[in-house]
């Protein structure tokens, strides 16, 4: 079963009590197609707490990422679910696009995959911004593309990979 290695980025903190804290994130380098037809690779945080991927406004709008619009409301048996398609309080559109993942070890690209994402309709107001939000790779990406995510914490830092069918 082919695998696609992911990248880990650590960051060391220390508390006011002198206690060390070691933060880590797992990234996937995602190859996107722009509206110009060119491609661009961007780091996405692999977020196991996110049902869907998120491509912030400053990424999709300002970089001109091409995507297909699939709706702007989520409904279920109770009707419209107004907050389900929000991200950080911002209304989002819902859509999909073709992507590939770049292997962190070899630099090779994966086969074509579908990324289903929320696309915020506006930028986060500067007054509410902690830092530029990073694109998120949500759990839908695994199920949509029949991938297996492995995160291994046995070594000195997290190691992650996708296994493809």
């Amino acid at each position, binding site marked *: 079963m082919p695998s696609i290695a992911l990248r880990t980025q650590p960051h060391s903190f220390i508390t006011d009590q002198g206690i060390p804290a070691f933060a880590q*994130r797992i990234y996937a380098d995602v190859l996107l197609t722009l509206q110009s037809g060119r491609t661009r690779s961007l780091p996405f945080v692999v977020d196991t707490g996110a049902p869907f991927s998120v491509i912030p406004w400053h*990424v999709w709008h300002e970089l*001109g990422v091409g995507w297909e619009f699939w709706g702007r409301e989520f409904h279920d048996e109770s009707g419209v679910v107004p907050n389900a398609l929000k991200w950080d309080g911002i209304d989002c559109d819902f859509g999909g696009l073709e992507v590939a993942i770049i292997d962190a070890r070899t630099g090779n690209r*994966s086969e074509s995959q579908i990324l289903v994402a929320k696309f915020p309709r506006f930028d986060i107001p500067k007054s509410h911004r902690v*830092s530029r939000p990073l694109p998120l790779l949500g759990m839908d990406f695994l199920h949509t593309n029949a991938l297996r995510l492995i995160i291994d914490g046995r070594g000195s830092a997290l190691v992650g990979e996708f296994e493809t069918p």
Partner: protein
Amino acid sequence: MKTEEIPSTIPRPYLEPGESHAEAIERWRKEIQIWSNSRSQTPPPLDDETVRKLADIRWAQEDSEVQLRFAGQLVVVFEKHIIAHGYDTKTVLEKAAGLLNCDVDDLAITWIDDFSDLRG
């Protein structure tokens, strides 16, 4: 607000009459596998330009000095040099494109994660 819509080129999920939600998603997943296989049996190698951009992005994200100096910012990288940096994507790209005399789509841009927004 204008939506940047493009013509349908990817499998899109939809409900057939009488089909449950779960059945529709399963059918869609199978369609994606067929679509993905039809795109190419062996994914094409990355072109030289993309490989160069990836190397620059990797350098920016792993270089300790870049991490320290540009934490929380967007950076445009070219041959292991930071060409432009800041918080506004368009401004940073246009500044770098002017300095390098190239198109904004030619540029490698990435974010230097400052871990200021951990969300957990």
